[in-house]
């Protein structure tokens, strides 16, 4: 049946049966929770909320705001610990962002939370003019980055890095795991300008701790060395890159992982130095559209520096993505560790 020329799905009138996974379990939409904890890793509960509570013990200027998403951004932990420093602004992202600007003008350091789609799309003009143009120290901390929900495009912020990267003065961070979220929450407290930070919430995997990792604002760090491939990755795709590297190792492919949590300002010196070393295939990996995110930023930086190396991108397609269960969607869009390893092997042939 025709559904009109503008529908992005042409099969909506086809009846469906209940989908069952290979092991016989039903796949449900992993939506609001958006945890990546089903991957057999150790996890940490609410790393952002707990870190903010810790930070607030010594910083009276810290206040928290949310637009009806404290539970889903882990800010409820802070709200419980410091009820008088918590502002429930209701479902009104524009006034939340503006009010955060006003509080910053009066000397406070606001951490404002919502979903990444709402901060980057709905409240853009307010982030831009009320906060960034004046370089105010507001921290905008946003859950559901990229493809971390099965709700479809209304909740999937596959474009937020592109949107926020284009904003002058704004520092943009995509942390990998619980360790990094906690460290970054502290590290951005003293930054004089505004910060946009992507957030994994709930039970968040802990990966980087075992590598002795320490987050530094604006710094890319080598997590693993390797001679054939250089992953330049950000956000939870660094976990996937590390897993892919382990899989590749079994096939005698040696892959390094350079983790780039700060998307802007980009640590160009470290990236250029790493890409210049030893003729490796450079593969960027990000939980974001292929348009305007880490990959394009790295590609442009390498070209500007005159580094001519084989270059590929692991990223989400420039499309409105499907709804469904996260494991299915990650496989479908090629951001699982298996998919990453497979793509790299294909490129090396």
């Amino acid at each position, binding site marked *: 049946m025709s559904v009109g020329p503008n529908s992005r799905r042409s099969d909506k009138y086809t009846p469906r049966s209940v989908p069952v996974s290979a092991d016989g379990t039903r796949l449900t939409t992993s939506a609001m929770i958006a945890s990546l904890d089903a991957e057999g890793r150790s996890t940490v509960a609410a790393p952002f909320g707990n870190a903010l509570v810790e930070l607030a013990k010594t910083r009276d200027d810290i206040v928290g705001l949310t637009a009806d998403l404290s539970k889903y951004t882990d800010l409820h932990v802070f709200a419980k610990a410091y009820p008088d420093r918590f502002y429930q602004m*209701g479902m009104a992202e524009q006034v939340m962002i*503006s009010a*955060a*600007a006003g509080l910053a003008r*009066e000397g406070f350091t606001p951490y404002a939370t919502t979903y990444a789609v709402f901060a980057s799309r709905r409240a853009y003009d307010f982030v831009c003019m*009320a906060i960034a143009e004046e370089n105010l120290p507001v921290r905008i901390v946003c859950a559901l980055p990229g493809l971390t929900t099965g709700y479809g495009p209304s909740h999937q912020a596959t474009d937020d890095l592109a949107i926020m990267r284009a904003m002058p003065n704004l520092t943009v961070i995509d942390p990998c795991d619980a360790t990094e979220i906690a460290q970054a929450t502290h590290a951005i407290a003293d930054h004089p300008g505004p910060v946009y930070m992507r957030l994994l919430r709930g039970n968040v995997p802990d990966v980087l701790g075992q590598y002795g990792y320490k987050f530094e604002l604006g710094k890319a760090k080598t997590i693993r060395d390797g001679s054939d491939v250089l992953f330049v990755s950000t956000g939870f795709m660094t976990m996937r890159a590390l897993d892919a590297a382990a899989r590749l190792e079994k096939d005698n492919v040696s892959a390094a992982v350079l983790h780039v949590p700060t998307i802007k300002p980009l640590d160009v010196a470290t990236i250029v130095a790493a890409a210049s070393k030893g003729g490796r295939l450079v593969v960027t990996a990000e939980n974001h559209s292929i348009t305007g995110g880490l990959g394009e930023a790295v590609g442009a930086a390498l070209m500007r520096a005159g580094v001519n190396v084989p270059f590929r991108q692991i990223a989400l397609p420039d499309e409105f993505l499907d709804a469904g269960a996260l494991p299915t969607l990650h496989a479908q869009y090629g951001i699982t560790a298996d998919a990453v390893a497979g793509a790299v092997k294909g490129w090396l042939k």
Partner: protein
Amino acid sequence: MTTDAAPSKSNVSLARRAWNIRRYALRMGEVQGQGYIGQALGIADVLAVSYFHALKFRPKEPEWEGRDRFCLSIGHYAIALYSAMIEAGILPESELETYGMDDSRMPMSGMAAYTPGMEITGGSLGHGLGIAVGMALGLKRKKNPAFVYNMLSDGELGEGSTWEAVMSAVQWKLDNLIAIVDFNDQQADGKTTAALCAEPLGIKWEAFGWHVQEVDGNDLPAVKRAFDTARAIKEPVPRVIICKTKMCKGVPFLEEREITHFVRVEADEWAKAIAHLDTEMPQ
């Protein structure tokens, strides 16, 4: 003006303050040959009451912590606010002729980064009241008794974000927040009431929970009383003063024009406008 606001001129009537503001605005308009002179002439009386009756400030210390905050969300009204701030001694009259020019501290649209005394960057309409909400929350956190004023326009009420802020101010019981709406029924394409009808305005704000006053914004004693009431009432609610103003007030041949949002004035008409004003100089 309070004792803390060292006056640049003493014993000057509000009428004379408003007249001076109009005259500075006309001189600035002449620099560019066109501009938002209609708004400046219309709102001059409200600004005179704001800066020389209501606001607490120190002209030589624009960031003094005890000041009342005056947030201009309608960035294009900057010409009017610069005039008021020149009259108040915050900005030097000698820079008046730099208005809108390269490297001026008085750009066409008001920005906090450019101008002492300009609290926020307006221009993208619908931002001011939300920022004012945050400042009012911040002042309460600091137990600072200062007021936050936000001057917005009738056209700006079309921006949905303004109404988010209207609701938020009530939710947080912001009795330190005073909104001033300039209702001149003019926006870029014509009449505001013919575009996205703000009327009936007073009962809208009242329904949201604000203390509402509607006054003739060109009636100085009425505006003065309204500011007094807005500051004095004890109810834990934000306050709004809706000021009905006449675009181009004080210059009859400009008042008569139909489209007054962005007035084009012929070179010889500036002198004519100032000459007319000079015939009506108050004491």
